[in-house]
């Protein structure tokens, strides 16, 4: 029996579990409690379970499970699938560390991986630095009208297509682009600065792409802070930066963690900004995954790489939450 077949059994098991849970609910609660099927009727109850099961299974569980299974298989031509060569293997994961053809360390991919994680951390930190003042202003000090205008100014640019935005940034930052022409025109530099080659475009593009993802959790967190707390700290003699250090940031920590996590995850998994704004020598990890799927049609290896990235990111996020003493539940509040 192929391992791919196991994947198809799991959804049936999930539906069965849902159904059993619904059945048991009436039995475990007291006699006055109306069970799931009593509340919804047999027909609707079954339909709900089937819908939720379908959603969970076909949109969440199945695609990922299929990819997991795929990543543990060798790359085979279609005719050999399911044949004697189709065995479970960790070769795809191994290939991330050791190049299969030469047996040397796979430095190119390892470096791309570290670079991607590193840049994503920097982007998340940079985004926090930009968004914290904006969010604080919107949540605590701005007048209602100004906050509305600011909110609009933040949101409207995102109506523009992501690729269009990336190319627009490219035009600004190119060797003969607006910024270089202005710098040269003002006599600040003699020759054009290679912003794109130095990955400035990549950093700016990534930061800008996820600005809102950072602003809104921060805004939500800071908005619920009682303004008297800020005034109390001020009254007790705290200068503004100590108020932020001791009162606002500790209070907003779940929001900060939520925003940073999202920006980090999305940035590490982003494709458009690195593709269009990255320098010619820059290798972004998602681009490697993309190439495995669509250039060399090596789905198993692409899937393995994607899971390495996913697991590494989750581990990193959990570690950071640990370090900053935030529980996972708080960040999705």
């Amino acid at each position, binding site marked *: 029996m192929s391992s791919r077949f196991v994947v198809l059994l799991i959804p049936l098991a999930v539906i069965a579990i849902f159904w059993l849970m619904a059945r048991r609910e009436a039995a475990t609660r007291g006699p006055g409690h109306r069970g799931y099927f009593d509340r919804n009727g047999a027909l609707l109850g079954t339909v709900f379970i089937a819908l939720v099961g379908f959603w969970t299974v076909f949109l969440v569980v199945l695609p990922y499970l299929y990819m997991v299974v795929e990543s543990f298989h060798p790359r085979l031509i279609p005719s050999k699938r399911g044949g004697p060569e189709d065995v479970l293997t960790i070769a795809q994961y191994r290939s991330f560390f050791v190049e299969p053809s030469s047996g040397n360390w796979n430095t190119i991919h390892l470096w791309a991986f570290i670079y991607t994680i590193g840049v994503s951390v920097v982007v998340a930190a940079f985004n926090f630095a930009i968004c914290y003042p904006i969010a604080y202003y919107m949540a605590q000090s701005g007048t209602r009208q100004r906050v509305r205008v600011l909110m609009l100014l933040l949101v409207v640019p995102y109506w523009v297509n992501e690729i269009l935005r990336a190319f627009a940034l490219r035009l600004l930052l190119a060797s003969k682009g607006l910024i270089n022409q202005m710098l040269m025109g003002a006599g600040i530099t003699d020759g054009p600065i290679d912003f794109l080659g130095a990955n400035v475009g990549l950093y700016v593009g990534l930061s800008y792409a996820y600005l809102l993802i950072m602003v809104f959790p921060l805004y939500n967190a800071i908005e619920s802070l009682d303004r008297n707390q800020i005034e*109390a700290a001020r009254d007790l003699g705290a200068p503004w930066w100590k108020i932020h250090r001791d*009162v606002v940031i500790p209070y907003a920590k779940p929001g900060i963690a939520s925003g940073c996590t999202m920006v980090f995850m999305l940035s590490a998994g982003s494709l458009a900004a690195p593709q269009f704004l990255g320098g010619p020598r820059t290798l972004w990890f998602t681009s490697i995954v993309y190439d495995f799927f669509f250039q060399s049609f090596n789905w198993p290896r692409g899937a393995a790489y994607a899971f390495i990235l996913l697991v590494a990111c989750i581990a990193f996020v959990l570690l950071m939450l640990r370090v900053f003493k935030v529980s996972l539940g708080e960040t999705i509040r």
Partner: protein
Amino acid sequence: MSASVELDNLTVRFGSFTAVSRATLDIAGGEFFSFLGPSGCGKTTILRAVSGFLDPTEGAVRIGGQDMSGISPNRRPTALIFQNLALFPLMTVAENIAYGLRVRGVGKAERRRKADELLELIALAGQGDKLVSELSGGQKQRVAIARALAVQPKVLLLDEPLSALDLKLRQHMRAELRAIQRQVGITFIYITHDQGEALTMSDRIAVMSDGVIEQVGDGKSVYDSPATPFVASFVGENNAFPGRVVSADARMAVIETAFGRLAGRNPSRLTAGDRAILFVRPEAMVPTAGAPEATLASEVVSVAFEGNLTHLYLRGSGKKEISLSIGRTAGFAMPAQGATTPASYAPEAGLVLPEGALARE
């Protein structure tokens, strides 16, 4: 260490709205001073101007003789206790108390020592490591006081700090606040809309209405000799009889009211023909006939027995009933509901003031 607080022609406007108008008064160092008034009268605005969260539109605030304009709240010798206390929920009790010391760069051991000392003062010794959320309402209240006292302010500002507590606790905290004030000896400025709080705790009271200070004086003078109809009707219960002065001398005046001619003291030197209001306290009235110009008659609307007092409500000329509070030892026979009874007072207990706005019920 205490400091005097002077308001010099203090005016605060928000756009076209004047929150405080030309407030001028001197609060002595070490005094327990209350601002009393209904909500929206401008008392909190005065407090925020003293603490530095608001800049006066005109006039000045001086603390210890020093002009405070341009000095931000973190640099003023004041500490504010907020209405909702605004304790820091993520810090322990001791950390809350020592926060003002922490931002001043005081070392950890010294902070802890000072916090323990203050916990002793507020009778919460040994509870420094608890979270604020583990404390009861009254305990939180005391922590807020300790946190403010930790920075050794010369003036402590209290913005209705007892309003969130239940009645019993509130009465207990009044005495406690007063005791703490005596102990630390600094100036307390207390904001309240509760006249009971103001009367029991304060050395002096400023009664405010619509941004204007109506009267400044100790509790007894504010209660016994209100300067305006607003003060007369806001501080304590009062029966108001509007009318027109028919005869007056330097001491007494008689006014023509809906219940006939009634007399009262005349501190404002009103003369015949002036529009005026006669005020008589419920406890100054008795349900019998007295001097002809200090007796009225009306129908009994209701009788309410309250233990030590019995409240008698007679039909008034307007919507508001005339109220009499009669001590149980006075030995009056209570008239039945629906009957018409005379009610009288000693003419000196009546007070005639020039016509003016009454406090809203």
